[in-house]
């Protein structure tokens, strides 16, 4: 078992003036572990995700990342070039709206191949082969490689965004409501795909979702946020089967049964 955490987060806070985005969040994320952050709109889960992924500067606290060379680096102290390299290679970020993570007016193949080019790949044939391979892994046919994502359905766009993120072999993927806004049948397919890829690739992932069923299916561990604070955390099935906090009990009891 791998005995060093990939991410060490200590007392991470983000305030907007008097208003709290997230407050004193501390946790460790281990290799191969999937953490779900749940809570209602405005609970601070997306603020936390953005602070963790350096898309937003935290007000206080630290996020340390275990780099491939074995050293821990405080993410706030990385140079802009180092940060960008990390985001393009070792990390992925899957947005709720695929249009935020894709380039809508270039081909699917170019969308997937772009990250390889960004890290120095130059051989066109090999990039195209890798792109074709990744499209098939996210169940997009090779005959669609030259189409623009504008011509894709919502579910296909989301799968394309995932392929674009995973092609460089990242170790950590951030996902912000990856199944939000999709039909349930499309959601089920995407969830199964994410679940399979995370398992096969041994990825670590931090997934923000308001959907407890998504958290149950994908995550090992979960954190429940309310008003910027983590009010309950632990093993996913323990938090869902034996919620302790009033708010978590409310969330769990509000799930519709079918």
């Amino acid at each position, binding site marked *: 078992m791998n005995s060093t955490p990939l991410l060490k987060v200590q007392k991470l806070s983000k305030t907007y003036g008097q208003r709290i985005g997230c407050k004193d969040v501390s946790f460790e994320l281990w290799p191969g572990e999937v953490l779900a952050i749940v809570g209602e709109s405005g609970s601070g889960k997306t603020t936390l995700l953005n602070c963790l992924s350096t898309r937003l500067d935290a007000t206080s606290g630290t996020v340390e990342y275990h780099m491939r060379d074995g050293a821990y680096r405080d993410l706030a102290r990385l140079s802009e070039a180092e940060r960008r390299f990390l985001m393009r290679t070792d990390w992925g970020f899957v947005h709720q709206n695929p249009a935020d993570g894709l380039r809508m007016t270039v081909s699917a193949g170019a969308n997937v191949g772009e990250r390889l080019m960004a890290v120095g790949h130059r051989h066109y044939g090999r990039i195209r082969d890798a792109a074709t391979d990744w499209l098939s892994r996210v169940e997009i046919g090779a005959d669609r490689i030259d189409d623009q994502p504008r011509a894709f359905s919502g579910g296909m766009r989301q799968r394309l965004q995932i392929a674009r993120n995973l092609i460089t072999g990242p170790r950590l993927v951030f996902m912000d409501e990856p199944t939000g806004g999709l039909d349930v049948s499309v959601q089920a397919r995407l969830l199964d795909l994410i679940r399979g890829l995370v398992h096969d690739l041994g990825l670590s992932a931090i997934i923000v979702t308001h959907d407890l069923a998504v958290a149950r*299916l994908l995550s090992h561990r979960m954190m429940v946020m309310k008003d910027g604070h983590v009010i309950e955390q632990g093993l996913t099935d323990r938090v869902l089967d034996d919620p302790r906090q009033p708010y978590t009990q409310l969330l769990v009891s509000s799930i519709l049964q079918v």
Partner: protein
Amino acid sequence: MDSLLEVSGVAKSFTMHLRDGIRLDVVRDVSFDLPRGQCVVLGGASGVGKSSILKMLYGNYGVDAGAIRIRHHDQWIDLATADPRTVLEVRRETLGYVSQFLRVVPRVSALDVVAEPLVARGMAMEDARARAAGLLDRLNLPKALWSLPPATFSGGEQQRVNIARGFITDHAVLLLDEPTASLDAENRAVVIAMIAEKKRAGTAMLGIFHDLEVRDAVADRILDVALFSAREKVA
């Protein structure tokens, strides 16, 4: 006695914040050992806390007090206080659970549902599928169903998928939550034989069986959960 699991002084209550903070005391002072190669059956009326005990042991429920020590490889781990990562490791390698109901994942075939615990432990997919096929065959699940996701299966068919998934590994400790509840006589007999084989292999099992025939066939000891009931004391 050579035990693989030792439970001592475990207590469990639920505080229902949405019901004016009512506190439900379920069990207290739960203490017993689970010896290697034996099947201990939890007895007692419905609602006495049998399922709660299984869920605390597996980690779905937290505990208010006490210790749940399990022998994991060469060390003893207290599941009552272990961190999530340790609990997951123990579940993957030492502690198995056969629940009454299958939590179905969309699009995953019955064969792969059964093979998954072996794949999670590093076995090659083809080998794991071959083992899964052997078990499904033994449990008389029609071959035509193997490649289908179990969502549309009958209760008895889903339960057999679940049993195969729970029995496929050589986990040292198995928790069985009514694994035979919706099976016909022929398949009940298969499960009884499988439990007997696990015993011979040294597996320690703790189960809930409402079916008296199955219970008599598998139980080495019956533990009356009413002894631990916290409700009677309140009443």
